[in-house]
């Protein structure tokens, strides 16, 4: 998938939504290249347990760089079905392939209505430009 096909949060998570064979909507969540570039020097990522319920806007983990620590926020309501557990020992894949091998978690969405709150690519780009101007 390419960045243009994804949805985004204001807090720099990206979301890719797919329908699984049972008809459930599954959101794959990652952190954008913009955010990873801004963090630089990643030293640690803390991801949750599979099975945990999350709500849109709630922290589900944290990512730490040499300079600072940031929370990771869930873009949607739902239950965590998968976690990219190899990531903590391979932070290079976060910076090297943020939209692929660097994915963070998968969430079975419980409220699809929340997806309409997310930003599309153009709106997210605009926000990044504003962030850069600050």
């Amino acid at each position, binding site marked *: 998938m390419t960045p243009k096909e994804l949805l985004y949060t204001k807090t720099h998570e990206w979301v890719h939504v797919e329908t699984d064979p049972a008809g459930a909507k599954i959101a794959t969540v990652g952190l954008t290249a913009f955010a990873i570039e801004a963090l*630089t*020097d990643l*030293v*640690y990522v*803390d991801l949750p347990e599979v099975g945990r319920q999350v709500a849109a806007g709630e922290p589900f983990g*944290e990512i*730490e760089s*040499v*300079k600072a*620590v940031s929370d990771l926020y869930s873009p949607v309501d739902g239950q965590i079905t998968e976690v990219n557990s190899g990531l*903590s020992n391979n932070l290079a894949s976060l910076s090297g392939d943020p939209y692929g091998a660097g994915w963070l978690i998968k969430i079975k969405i419980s409220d699809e209505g929340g997806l309409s709150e997310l930003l599309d690519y153009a709106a997210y780009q605009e926000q990044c430009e504003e962030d850069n101007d600050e």
Partner: protein
Amino acid sequence: MTTAHYTPNRTPLYDWHVAHGGRMVEFAGWAMPMLYTSIIEEHVTTRTAVGLCDITHMSHLRFEGPGAGEFLGNLLTRKIGDLAPGHLRYSLVTNYQGGILDDVLVGHFHDSKAQPFYVVVANGANRLKMVDWINAHLPKELAQRPSHEVAYWDVTRLWAMIAIQGPRTLELLRPFVDVDLDEMPYYTGAEISILHPAGQRQGGIISRTGYTGEDGFELILGVGIAPGVWEALLEAAKPLGGLPTGIGARDTLRLEAGMPLYGHELTEQINPFQARLGFACELYNLDYPGRDALRKLKEQPLDSIRVGLELVGRRVARQGCTVLAGVEPVGWVTSGSYAPTLEKTIAMGYVRPEFARPGTELQIDVRGRKEEAQVVKLPFYHRNKTKKGNQK
């Protein structure tokens, strides 16, 4: 920035930093580059080759006159009157309660064409506080005492300062200056001429000092020639594997080297004995603010002392985290980071003396979750020493 009309100070290298990808942040009232490409890369470059860091944010006070050395000796915690020309000394400035107002480097220089002078390099964030403190202790009667006259100038805005640090520093600097740097012991310095055309026949002050735990020098230049000399140095550093380094790497380097930073390990609420800086306090023969308090403090048991902490996990314990022995709070963290050279997570902080012994297992509350830590001996990082550049 919330204050609409406030702009941080800019060093003469500001435009260069911005043009070369420097991520500018406000630090001590100055716009400084946190990093250019990566704190870790810039840190490792300083340990393995040579890093060049703009440290113009440091405050520079120039003292002159026959009474200058005596005056400084009665303001700072260490004797200054016996400092031979070409030598530097680390000292503290304390308040009347013995709390640390600042930590400074004092250099004594004599260019043979004018009377000797002293340079006090103070922390950037403490400039106005220091100026006020000096003014309060230098009334006209004292400043104009016959044969003991003393005057000082805050030359911060006129002097740029560049730290050149790392094992390849000598190779880089030899052709730039007219003194024998190889023969310059640690904590000495000299007035120099810049041999490179970018120096425009001006000089500067160089000292074998630093804040990284590596061999290196710090170079003071007039702000007019600083951009040209900086670029010439970087050009010459390229074939040596050198890089410009931001204040992010400066912080991780000093932390690995166990060096305290004002505003973190050192504050007005901390006294020199807690900070393990008692060596920098002359308790007799000088009469500086805080001396009497320090004499008393020395006789009392410490309630906390500065220690190094090594964490088991990767989460970083940053300034303000509480240090615990089980559930009991026994101290606090003053600095913490991932340590690029050690590839470990480390911190400095203060703990009660009974928990300060290396090997003591403690916990740190990091954002609501306890992390395991162990007290370790400072410094965390010790370079392989060569003969020169390490003489005290």
